[in-house]
């Protein structure tokens, strides 16, 4: 049965993020009420990738430090081309163990979040918020080239880790590919496989539209934008174990449900990673 390989330090899996850094990402991000003055799509993307990396790191954190259950790469695509997107100590690195991500954010900000006070109420608490990426956007959207670059990177990774839990690729974009039709390149990427199954490609569509957020749809009927439909068509059908986990959280799923979200959060993907017991009542 696919997608059952144990993820461990001796048999790690891999996350590859593709982030759209094109000029169109400077447009406003859609708000549910259509209010002006909100974030740009580029700022929403920075939030999304920072949250995904933060959650992935925390997932792998233990009392004695970070366990390298995953290797992580981030490829940026935009006016300056296609390539590794990290800065600072990670600059130019294609793929690094998760502990290097953990220990090399660009900066760690102090933020405030509301937490359970133990008596049914909420209190404000200062937290450290790591930032690896700031908003960036210029030039065209070479998404097709990004998929081809991802293909090369994962072909190499899979040769070195033939029995790994299949790599997960997360593409975050507004969908306006400007080089070529990315469909075939996305299919080629999804056809790569380890002995445990095919590469999973998930898409997070950031749009200026104020349409309601959509998570894990079964078909493209409710997707009103053409770019959404394209990204949906290039998204993997969720493996059975992810369907079950989503279903347990009350999300309606079928065997056709795909790894696609529209103006929503993909952090749930990190929650679905199985590295051992996860308490049902974990906050």
């Amino acid at each position: 049965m696919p997608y059952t390989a144990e993820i461990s330090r001796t048999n790690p899996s891999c996350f590859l993020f593709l982030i759209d850094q094109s000029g169109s990402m400077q447009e406003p991000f859609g708000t549910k009420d259509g209010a002006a003055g909100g974030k740009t799509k580029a700022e929403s993307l920075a939030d999304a990738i920072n949250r995904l990396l933060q959650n992935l790191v925390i997932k792998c954190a233990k009392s004695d430090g970070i366990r390298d259950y995953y290797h992580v790469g981030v490829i940026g695509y935009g006016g300056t081309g296609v390539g590794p997107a990290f800065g600072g100590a990670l600059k130019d690195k294609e793929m690094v163990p998760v502990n290097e991500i953990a220990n090399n954010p660009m900066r760690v900000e102090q933020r405030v979040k509301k937490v359970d006070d133990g008596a049914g109420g909420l209190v404000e608490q200062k937290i450290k918020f790591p930032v690896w990426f700031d908003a960036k956007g210029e030039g065209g959207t070479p998404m097709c080239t990004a998929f081809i670059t991802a293909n090369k990177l994962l072909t190499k990774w899979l040769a070195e880790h033939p029995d790994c839990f299949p790599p997960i690729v997360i593409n975050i974009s507004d969908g306006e590919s400007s080089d070529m039709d990315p469909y075939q390149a996305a299919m080629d990427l999804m056809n790569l496989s380890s002995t445990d199954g095919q590469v999973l490609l998930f898409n997070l569509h950031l749009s200026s539209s104020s349409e309601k957020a959509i998570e894990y749809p079964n078909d493209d009927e409710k997707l009103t934008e053409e770019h959404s439909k394209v990204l949906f068509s290039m998204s993997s059908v969720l493996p059975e174990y992810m369907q079950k986990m989503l279903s347990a959280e009350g999300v309606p799923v079928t065997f056709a449900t795909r790894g696609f979200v529209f103006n929503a959060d993909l952090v749930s993907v990190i929650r679905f990673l199985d590295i051992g017991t996860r308490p049902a009542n974990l906050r």
Partner: protein
Amino acid sequence: MRVTGKLFWMPKKGNSIEEYEDAAYPVESFEVDVPEFKCAVADGATETSFAGFWAALLCEGFAEGYAMKELRKTWNDAVRQKELPWYAEEKLEKGAYAALVGLHLKKTRGKKNPFVVEATGDCCILHVRENQMLSAFPISKSEDFNNSPALVCSHEFASVDAQMQKHTTKGEWKDGDSFFLLSDAIACWALKRQEELQDLANVLQNIETQEDLNRLVDEERQLILEDGRPSMKNDDVTLMCVTVCS
């Protein structure tokens, strides 16, 4: 009442002994003559930090009768003694989680000698008499195990505690009865073995040394079933066998 206990454990394959996050109390094999006796096994959740320490506190707390509030304070005081990197701090805020099963045996003057079991999560206890399995608690079918049980948290979060379910059962013990306290991986395997071959009591009674457990666990971890998964999940394993005589 004479109570003897054998305790065996081994870490997840690929992990070091220091990374073992199950716990038991008493912390080693024992033989006591007492009117009342308590013991426990706990399993710290992989996805949380300082979980092994929390599991050990829960076991000791059950056996020695410490209040949950006290245990939580001990955990929090201990883990916050030094400055931690951002990710360790964030993880601490989420707390540690663990499953717990505890056995309380009593000797009375009457004919019936009672026992009480408390359990939260997926650590299990099996009651064996004359080489027959009488009951399994709180999980009695292998298919009921999953990777996301509701567990005991080191923080007092109202929302978290509300989901935590403590199960209790009572019964009677007779001379020569055995109780096996198991962490989840070996418990799930054990129930499946019983469902398929009905010889579990015999298999468990034959584990008399640490080497016996190592051999069994190694074999079952290597045995791959039709669905591609190992016969016993690669996880920390703890087995406490308690035998009681009046």
